[in-house]
């Protein structure tokens, strides 16, 4: 990765929610044209990290450099300019139900550019072609399957020709075939358009299909960064448990400790 241009640089990113530390000094560099997967269990901080990468959350300390700017310190106007340069595929597709597929895809164009409607119409159709949904522009989101909605969301994420696309759980709720379709689209678009893809997921099948590199987060820390092969053969027991999905291991869903009685009765006067 050393010969590739770094497009996102996260430096000592820390974020607390109340007394809980969610991100504990994250350092991460993301290169042009790579697909980087951020994985980890529920509550590990991966969605919070993603929100900091897209500028929708501000850290307690640390920096997020993208397009030559620390977006952690950018104001709303500056963030608006930066947001034109990246696309975001939300978990559910996040389509507006009252708008057609075409209107949903055109939203960023109408918001950020002054283009003739005939030109916008051609762009919508070009993007639908890219995601394999030719002729769907006049349908309503309610007429689409979950996988189709994701692909429309991807078409919208692509409409401004972004250099970076962020994906939040892109295959959540999809059947195995549609998961494969969305994964293939992610791979194709990243390679053909030389887009940088940052994917947050815990779908292990997808992770190893699409990733150039994987970041494993655990309790707000980067546990390991490596290629899929390196992660697969990691000796770290937490990573091994995560990959194999074993119920027993260092990742526990049970709260341990001796203070259970104290916790249950904390409001009872002695």
């Amino acid at each position, binding site marked *: 990765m050393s010969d590739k241009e770094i497009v996102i640089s996260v430096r000592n990113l820390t974020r607390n929610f109340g007394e809980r530390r969610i991100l504990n000094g994250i350092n991460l560099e993301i290169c042009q044209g790579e697909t980087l997967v951020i994985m980890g269990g529920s509550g590990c901080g991966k969605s919070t990290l993603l929100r900091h990468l897209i500028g929708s959350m501000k850290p307690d300390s640390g920096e997020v450099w993208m397009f030559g700017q620390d977006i952690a310190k950018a104001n709303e106007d500056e963030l608006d300019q930066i947001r034109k340069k990246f696309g975001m595929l939300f978990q559910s597709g996040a389509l507006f139900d009252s708008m057609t597929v075409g209107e949903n895809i055109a939203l960023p164009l109408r918001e950020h550019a002054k283009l003739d409607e005939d030109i*916008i119409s051609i762009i919508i159709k070009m993007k639908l072609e890219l995601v394999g949904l030719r002729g769907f522009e006049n349908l309503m989101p309610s007429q689409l399957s979950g996988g189709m909605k994701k692909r429309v969301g991807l078409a919208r994420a692509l409409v401004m*020709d972004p250099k970076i696309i962020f994906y939040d759980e892109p295959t959540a709720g999809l059947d195995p075939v549609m998961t494969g379709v969305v994964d293939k689209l992610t791979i194709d678009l990243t390679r053909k358009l030389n887009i940088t893809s940052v994917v947050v997921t815990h779908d292990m099948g997808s992770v190893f299909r699409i990733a150039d590199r994987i970041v494993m987060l655990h309790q707000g820390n980067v546990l390991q960064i490596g290629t899929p092969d390196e992660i697969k053969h990691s000796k770290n027991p937490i990573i091994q448990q995560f990959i194999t999905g074993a119920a027993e291991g260092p990742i526990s869903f049970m709260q341990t400790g001796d203070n259970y009685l104290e916790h249950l009765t904390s409001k009872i006067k002695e």
Partner: protein
Amino acid sequence: MEVKALEENGFSVFQVTGEINISTSPELRKAFEKQSSKKVVVDLEKVTYIDSSGLATLVEMLKKTKAQGGSLGLAGMTDKVKSLFEITKLDKLFSIYSSRAQALTQV
């Protein structure tokens, strides 16, 4: 971006220089609107990048030219620009020539 409109051997030639993007493509569209020739060549040799709005502008121009019984050729695009036509399958819609000279004899 800069657009020069020229007449050459009975062709309308548009020589485009620089980046065709969401800010500059309306200017290219304006230049196209002014011409009425049935034979059009767009010389893209000096174009460094073209985004979706630029591609859409060329698609619209192709449609209008064909509707008038004319023909349009694209000439001299770099490999990088050509790959953007290929990804969007637009290379199948346009007549693409390696140089302006070739386009002027074959369009």
